[in-house]
């Protein structure tokens, strides 16, 4: 069973349908008490850092999620959900992240750079991970974001270049994050979601 955190601004339904389409059991949860025993948790994206951080704090999901991570539950952060796994973001200075990855999200800058980074782009696998099994070393995925998690050799498993190199896949112990939307990235995305469901 995969628990998908259904914040008011997330596209949790899209993630739900993606798992369902592959016959993987999942449900959308909105209450902290529902993830007390979760073994696999997805924190989906679409939204603003401050709004998602506030929702997680107000609903007490933030502290339970931190606890479940420390107890070894497998967690997948998608897009903004991945950014929430870092310490914070320039998008909302006063809001805190979960802090699995000790870095702050930055905004894309560049005179000729279109922001947001919207569309299909390439992910270069930097280091192999079980969640990336079966994918080419370079694969395409759908991105939609204005902020990024900087590259860190300790946890950047996938890297994409857009004005600068940024982390498109991060992983540390039982936590993994993807900056793109696997639920919208067709067969490559399905492979990642399926791998997450099987990740031991």
């Amino acid at each position, binding site marked *: 069973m995969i628990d998908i955190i259904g914040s008011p601004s997330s596209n949790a339904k899209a993630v739900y349908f993606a798992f369902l389409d592959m016959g993987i059991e999942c449900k959308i949860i909105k209450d902290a008490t529902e993830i007390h025993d979760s073994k696999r948790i997805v924190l989906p994206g679409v939204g603003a850092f401050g709004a998602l951080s506030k929702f997680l704090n107000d609903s007490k999901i933030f502290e339970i999620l931190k606890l479940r991570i420390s107890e070894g539950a497998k967690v997948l952060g998608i897009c903004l959900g991945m950014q929430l796994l870092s310490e914070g973001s320039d998008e909302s200075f006063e809001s805190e992240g979960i802090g699995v990855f000790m870095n702050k999200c930055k905004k894309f800058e560049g005179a000729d750079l*279109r922001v947001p980074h919207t569309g299909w782009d390439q992910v270069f696998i930097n280091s192999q991970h079980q969640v990336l099994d079966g994918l080419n070393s370079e694969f395409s995925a759908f991105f939609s974001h204005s902020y990024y998690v900087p590259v860190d050799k300790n946890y950047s498993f996938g890297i994409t270049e857009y004005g600068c190199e940024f982390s498109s896949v991060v992983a540390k112990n039982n936590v993994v994050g993807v900056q793109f939307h696997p639920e919208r990235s067709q067969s490559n995305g399905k492979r990642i979601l399926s791998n997450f469901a099987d990740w031991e």
Partner: protein
Amino acid sequence: MLFKRLIPKIVVEKTDPQNPLIFKSILTRAFEPFRVVGDPISQVKIQQSNLVDEILLVHRNRGLFDITFSDLVLRSCEYLNTPLTVGGAVTEPSHARRLFESGADKIVIGRARSNLALLESVVSNFGAQALVISIDYSDDDLKFGVDKFCENEISFGYLSLAGEIALNNIDRDGSGAGVDLRLVETLQGTTKAPIVVGCGVSSVGHIIDCFSSSCDAVTLSTFLSQTDQSTKQIRSHISTFGVHIRTRN
């Protein structure tokens, strides 16, 4: 390197007063209904099977936001693992929330684009990347020149909030006369947001013309419905002209 995008546009409308809950997919000319194509869910499934870059689902609606449209969005999402952008008389934050909760990745705001409070609400709750501002204009709107028109649009103050700008010349819609690219260069100098153009494509050459400008994506509607071209074929074709487009997943 970011790929250019081809986006099939599915326009829906409630065409039968006897069945007020049934949406039909339609083709339009100058944004007016021209022909009923069929069931929108079938259209969604066809585009999904073609592994398109993104789908734009629009409710042609001159009235108030129709809550049943969000049910269609939800049903579409059941079949999609492709990005979905939706639009249809969004004038309040609650409309946007409803569409996002139904599975939309981005929403389009057109008529209400001068309502900065609405736009700010969408951006603060859902992020700028989720907001597409659509500028639907006619040739008549350009009678005092492109610069004057763009100046007026810039004065609304929404450009800094937009995650994407969609440009649609209504007079070109369904005409097959090629896409009006006159606004692209002027607006791209004033916004960092990606630019999507549409209305008027009737040949692969028209699409190549679009990508010769600085636009990021092209929407296709009549061209896909009235020819035997699929986006797969088109992508393969235009890539041979040097357009950086996805030709495999």
